[in-house]
């Protein structure tokens, strides 16, 4: 059982950060009423590579993270006794993707999990994290991408229908380093992800890409924050979502903050949503706060639309059935992002899952 020793403010739903989230479906992650699980579901699923280590480190041995403004993340930091640390040594080039997996555990207790992915200076790696099955999970992932390093992080929420998953993905990107994330959310009951980026050196580059597909009753929230707190950093955000069926609900928040000292910032964020049926709801809120005019560029765009009748007509006029035409259009819509995943097996698996979700809802 969890015993809370500190006073974590419990969100009530009126707070800006929680106003879309269905708190009553979080199974007690937010208010501490969930029982604390003892299992550790994260495992390394790749053959050993020189320069890459994966171990559990007692949290006392790691610099303690301060409090966040997120109640669930504060709970993770308080309740997780150890941290799963994936480390890529400096100057190491890992050619094959490193696979991390999480699988089902029972839904009766909550796993609070801290993860650190640390890529040393001038190292290069791709990490693919696959999440499957049903679970109740609060995770706090921190990425440290040291100077000149490059990390591509692919996170696949391929959960079954009962999962409640809340996570912060916080990237600290140093001088001339590149952090690229591809976030895919196509399974689960409630998934709330907080991808955040903090630059610590000029010349840093962050690309946050994502796709999500929510069907009846699913709630998927992606709440992004890019903090341009150094000069000459670049960020690109591009999330694409599709929704189908009654009470499918997605939320995309894109906050970009360009601080007064962040001269030379170059940022653009984009969110596009495709509503496949009536009864679904896509909230899309881009926010850009700019404290300096000395920048290269800053912009955002958000669109939410339905199937393009002209596209469907064109495809059908070549004999393609309405179902196949829709499938082609949805696949095409997502392919821009999915094709960025450097593993064709994963690409195909995701597209097949999207197809089967489409068939399920009869869109």
């Amino acid at each position, binding site marked *: 059982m969890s015993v809370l020793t500190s006073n974590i403010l419990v969100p009530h739903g009126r707070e800006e950060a929680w106003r879309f989230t269905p708190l009553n479906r979080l199974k007690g992650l937010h208010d501490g009423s969930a029982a604390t699980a003892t299992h550790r579901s994260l495992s390394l699923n790749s053959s050993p590579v020189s320069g890459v280590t994966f171990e559990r480190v007692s949290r006392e041995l790691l610099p303690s993270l301060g409090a966040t403004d997120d109640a669930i993340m504060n709970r993770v930091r308080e309740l997780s006794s150890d941290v799963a640390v994936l480390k890529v040594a400096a100057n190491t080039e890992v050619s094959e993707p490193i696979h991390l997996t999480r699988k089902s555990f029972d839904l009766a207790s909550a796993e609070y999990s801290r993860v650190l992915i640390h890529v040393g200076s001038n190292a290069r790696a791709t990490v693919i994290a696959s999440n499957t099955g049903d679970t109740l999970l609060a995770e706090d992932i921190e990425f440290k991408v040291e100077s000149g390093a490059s990390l591509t992080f692919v996170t696949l929420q391929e959960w079954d229908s009962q999962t409640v998953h809340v996570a912060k993905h916080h990237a600290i990107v140093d001088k001339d380093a590149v952090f690229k994330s591809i976030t895919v959310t196509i399974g689960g009951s409630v998934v709330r992800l907080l991808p955040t980026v903090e630059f610590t050196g000029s010349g840093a580059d962050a690309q946050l890409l994502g796709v999500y597909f929510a069907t009846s009753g699913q709630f998927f929230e992606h709440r992004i924050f890019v903090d341009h707190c150094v000069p000459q950093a670049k960020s690109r955000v591009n999330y694409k979502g599709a929704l189908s069926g009654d009470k499918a609900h997605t939320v995309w928040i894109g906050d970009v903050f360009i601080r007064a000292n962040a001269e030379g910032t170059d940022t653009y964020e984009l969110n596009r949503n495709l509503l496949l049926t009536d009864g679904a709801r896509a909230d899309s809120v881009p926010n850009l706060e700019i404290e300096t005019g000395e920048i290269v560029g800053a912009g955002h765009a958000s669109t939410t639309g339905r199937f393009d009748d002209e*596209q469907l007509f064109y*495809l059908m*006029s070549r004999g393609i059935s309405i179902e196949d035409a829709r499938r*082609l*259009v949805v696949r095409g*819509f997502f*392919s821009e992002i999915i094709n960025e995943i450097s593993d064709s097996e994963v690409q195909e698996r995701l597209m097949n899952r999207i197809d089967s979700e489409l068939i399920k809802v009869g869109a």
Partner: protein
Amino acid sequence: MSTLEIRNLQVSVDTENGAVEILKGVDLTIKSGETHAIMGPNGSGKSTLAYSIAGHPKYTITGGSVTLDGADVLDMSVDERAKAGLFLAMQYPVEVPGVSVSNFLRTAATALRGEAPKLRTWVSEVKDAMDALSIDPSFAQRNVNEGFSGGEKKRHEIMQLELLKPKIAILDETDSGLDVDALRIVSEGVNRAKDANNLGVLLITHYTRILRYIKPDFVHVFANGKVVEEGGPELADKLEAQGYAEYVGN
């Protein structure tokens, strides 16, 4: 031998000011192997005729009939019309982001033939069709119509015509926006499809120049939503000389 029969076709389109009648009773009969040119001024309803036959949802059929070998075309969904043997080469082909030409063509061929074409023969079939229209092989990996030039879009339409082998094709201003070389290449493609499949063609155009490459058996002058004069190829020469003024009443 196929026959497309259009009888007293009346079509309206919804606008902010209510339904507006565009086609006011069109009669046409197109048989396999025949080429019919429909010529008329802008705004006469030529494209509406093309899209109505193909089943575009924007148009409402208010009267008349369209049959292909006796089957009621107006009762068919858009894909069923294609499966029945109709093809529309569009004036403004639509971009489909993220869908490659090769995937699109194979999906269409699979739908129309009832089974997936054998990969080996299919690859050479597509290559031959592309070569014949001087289309670069890299085209197959591009997204459908995305970033295509006007000429590339038209060649892509005619490539589909050759690969999908319809019985009756409607070509909606296929000549618009083409330079002389592209017009010749595209016209040769139409003529190959005619010869190979005894294709019936309904060729919609504003200008006579494409008729130098694709010879019509019949010419129909279209004005104000209906056919106002019919004749042989010589009628096109008269239009070339005199324009449409006498048909539009000004």
